[in-house]
């Protein structure tokens, strides 16, 4: 029973289900039906019987279809799968490779960063080292400057900068040494020494060939620089200086000879010797040339050594002396020749002064040495020749001394000698050391001159002798007083004039006294034993009256009582002095007489009518 029951139930249930089915709402069913419609077109029994198979068949078809489709899918899928597997393998491989390269790049990075920091370090090093190297090494350019032109034997200013640098490097090396960097320092030094030696050798050779052309403006600086470098090598330096002396000496001498004999370029200026006939011009030109040339030589030398710092003035002088050595002989010969020709003392004197002047000028540059020596000798010779000639000229003038003529003026011989003296002194006056000269010349001339005057005067009567002497002295005095340094002579002349004026005064006073006839009166007045004067013969009023009369005449025309020779006195001043002093004698006697007359003891009656002039009044009329 149960199974039946269960069948029953199943059936019911299915029924139910079919019955319960709401077809319109079931989409699947709808769909299925729709599908069914497509192939189930007639509702017939066969059809109905067939339906099932038909459906099954149809389902099978679909499944086959599906299967084939799925197998396609499956194939496709499989190929995708394979691809993916392949891909996976590749990716794995890549991953592996990546892993590798990752590993490697890490090492690289590490290395790079190491290198990078190394590079930084090196850059810093380089920053430090390269200036250092610049400082302690020659650049290729510099080496080239030093060595490149070895053969061409030319020198440029660059050479000296390089040398300066070498020196600088030396100094640095010394600093390095002090800092304890001995190896570097010694190394550098050694290098530099080699460079330096080579460079100096070059400079030396060049300078040796060129030093004599120091006056060539293009070379001056180079030579000066070369000398300053060479001064650290005394032997080389000395060789150059020797070379220089020899070179310049011969240039100087031949230039001198040319100036004398050929003149300047194309004969302008004319050769100095063309004017040899006028010895003053000749000597002047010669010395002007020489002085200039020597100054130029001095300048050359100073230029050449201007950068040398341990050169003393003595060294320069010694060198200049050597350079100027050669001039001595040609100069000496010519000056000696000039002095050997007989010439007037005046001209010789101006030549002598030229000699002295240029000696002084040149000796300011060359205070010793052979040229100085030559000039001193020439000057001495000039002095000697001059004074000998002067003496000779003076002697010639005194060969015959004429006696003074009656007018008692200085004779021509005196005039000539004075003229000579004046000429000489005028020339001498322009010199520097003129005092000694002027005194010596004056001494030379004035001694014989005064002797001559004495000699001439000794042949004259006393009064004429005094006048002549005073006249000569006056002329000489006038001449000398125009010049300096003549005090000594003027004193002597003054003393001699004074002595003669005293004589003249005495003569004139005696003449006056005799003329006025006061001799006896004076004698009586001097007598000290006093009787009344009016009682003494010769002093009686009548006699005195005569004297006063004469005195009146004298007062009105005093010139009548002057010795006639006094007109011959050249100096009116002297004349006045003599007159005045002789009148003072008269005044003195008158004063005594006046006092005596007015002295009651002497018993003159009415003294004021006798002597109506007071001494002061007389003084006024004859002395003022």
């Amino acid at each position, binding site marked *: 029973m149960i199974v039946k029951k269960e069948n029953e139930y199943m059936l019911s249930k299915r029924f139910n289900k079919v019955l319960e089915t709401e077809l319109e709402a079931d989409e699947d069913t709808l769909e299925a039906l729709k599908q069914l419609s497509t192939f189930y077109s007639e509702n017939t029994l066969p059809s109905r019987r067939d339906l099932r198979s038909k459906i099954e068949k149809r389902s099978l078809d679909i499944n086959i279809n599906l299967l084939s489709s799925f197998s396609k899918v499956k194939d496709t899928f499989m190929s995708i799968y394979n691809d993916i597997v392949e891909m996976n393998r590749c990716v794995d491989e890549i991953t592996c490779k990546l892993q590798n390269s990752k590993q490697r790049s890490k090492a690289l990075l590490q290395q790079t960063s190491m290198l990078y920091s190394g590079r930084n370090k090196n850059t810093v090093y380089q920053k430090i080292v390269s200036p250092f190297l610049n400082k302690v090494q020659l650049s290729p350019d510099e080496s080239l400057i030093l060595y490149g032109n070895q053969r061409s034997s030319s020198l440029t200013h660059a050479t000296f900068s390089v040398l300066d640098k070498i020196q600088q490097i030396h100094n640095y090396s010394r600093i390095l040494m002090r800092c304890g960097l001995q190896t570097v320092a010694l190394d550098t030094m050694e290098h530099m020494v080699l460079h330096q030696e080579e460079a100096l050798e070059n400079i030396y050779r060049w300078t040796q060939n060129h030093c004599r052309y120091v006056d060539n403006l293009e070379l001056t600086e180079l030579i000066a620089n070369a000398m300053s470098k060479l001064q650290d090598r005394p032997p080389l330096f000395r060789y150059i200086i020797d070379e220089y002396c020899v070179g310049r000496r011969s240039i100087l001498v031949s230039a001198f000879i040319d100036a004398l004999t050929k003149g300047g370029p194309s004969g302008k200026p004319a050769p100095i010797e063309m004017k040899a006939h006028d010895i003053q011009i000749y000597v002047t030109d010669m010395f002007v040339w020489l002085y200039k040339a020597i100054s130029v030589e001095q300048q050359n030398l100073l230029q050449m050594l201007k950068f040398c710092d341990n050169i003393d003035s003595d060294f320069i002088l010694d060198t200049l002396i050597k350079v100027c050595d050669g001039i001595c002989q040609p100069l000496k010969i010519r000056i000696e020749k000039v002095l050997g020709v007989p010439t007037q003392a005046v001209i010789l004197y101006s030549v002598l002064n030229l000699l002295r002047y240029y000696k002084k000028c040149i000796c300011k540059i060359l205070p010793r040495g052979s040229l100085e020596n030559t000039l001193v000798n020439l000057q001495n010779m000039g002095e000697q020749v001059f004074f000998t000639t002067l003496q000779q000229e003076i002697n010639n003038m005194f060969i015959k001394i004429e006696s003074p003529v009656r007018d008692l003026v200085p004779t021509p011989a005196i005039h000539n000698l004075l003229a000579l003296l004046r000429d000489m002194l005028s020339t001498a006056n322009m010199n520097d050391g003129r005092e000694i000269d002027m005194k010596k010349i004056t001494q030379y001339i004035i001694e014989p001159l*005064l*002797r001559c*005057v*004495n*000699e001439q*005067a*000794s042949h*004259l*009567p*006393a009064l004429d*002798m*005094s006048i002549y*002497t005073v006249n000569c002295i*006056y002329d000489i*005095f*006038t001449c000398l*007083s125009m010049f300096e340094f003549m*005090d*000594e002579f003027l*004193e*002597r002349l*003054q*003393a*001699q*004039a*004074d*002595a*003669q*004026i*005293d*004589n003249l*005064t*005495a*003569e004139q*006073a*005696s003449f006056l*006294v*005799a003329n006025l006839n006061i*001799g006896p009166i*004076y*004698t009586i007045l001097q007598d000290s034993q006093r009787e009344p004067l009016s009682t003494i013969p010769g002093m009686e009023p009548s006699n005195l009256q005569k004297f006063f009369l004469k005195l009146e005449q004298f007062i009105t025309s005093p010139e009548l009582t002057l010795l006639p020779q006094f007109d011959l006195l050249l*100096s009116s*001043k*002297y004349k*006045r*002095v003599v007159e*005045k*002093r*002789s009148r*003072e*004698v008269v005044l*003195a*006697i008158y004063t005594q007489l006046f006092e005596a007359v007015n002295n009651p003891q002497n018993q003159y009656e009415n003294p004021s009518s006798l002597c109506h002039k007071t001494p002061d009044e007389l003084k006024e009329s004859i002395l003022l």
Partner: protein
Amino acid sequence: MSAGPYNYSYIFKYIIIGDMGVGKSCLLHQFTEKKFMADCPHTIGVEFGTRIIEVSGQKIKLQIWDTAGQERFRAVTRSYYRGAAGALMVYDITRRSTYNHLSSWLTDTRNLTNPSTVIFLIGNKCDLDAQRDVTYEEASKFAEENGLMFVEASAKTGDNVEEAFLETAKKIYQSIQDGRLDLNAAESGVQHKPSQPGRNNLSNDQQGNKDNCAC
């Protein structure tokens, strides 16, 4: 010389007289230059020399006329006596004749100079004692009798030369101090410095007080 125009207070004028060849020029030279000039040329008329000396702290300039002994210059030399304050009268001790002429020189001097002129007798060449012709005593007596100062001197060795000139100056200076010598007299042979450069200076006329008569 001439260091400052008047670095002295007085000028004394001297003359040196005596026969030719007694050594007058040599004495002057010895005194002014302190040198013996053996080959001294003959003096023509007069020669001149100066030197500044000191007496009692005063600087004195001596202006000395050395005269020629020759007779032919007598007129010339006489004209220098007038203004002399001191006269050095020289003889040669080796030549008696020069001594014998002294009285004539003395007369000349007395006549031509003023009374205050100091006369100093010098027996020169005393270095030549071996050739002596005049004894010291004799000359000394002569000097005393005539009121002269006296030394024997040698221009050659310089002995007593300085003394003769200086003693004379001292005596003159004494006369000035005593007032025996009138400085204002033109012929006193003494000038007071530094008032004027010279009495008759050519460039400077001046007043000279003259109180002397030639009669």
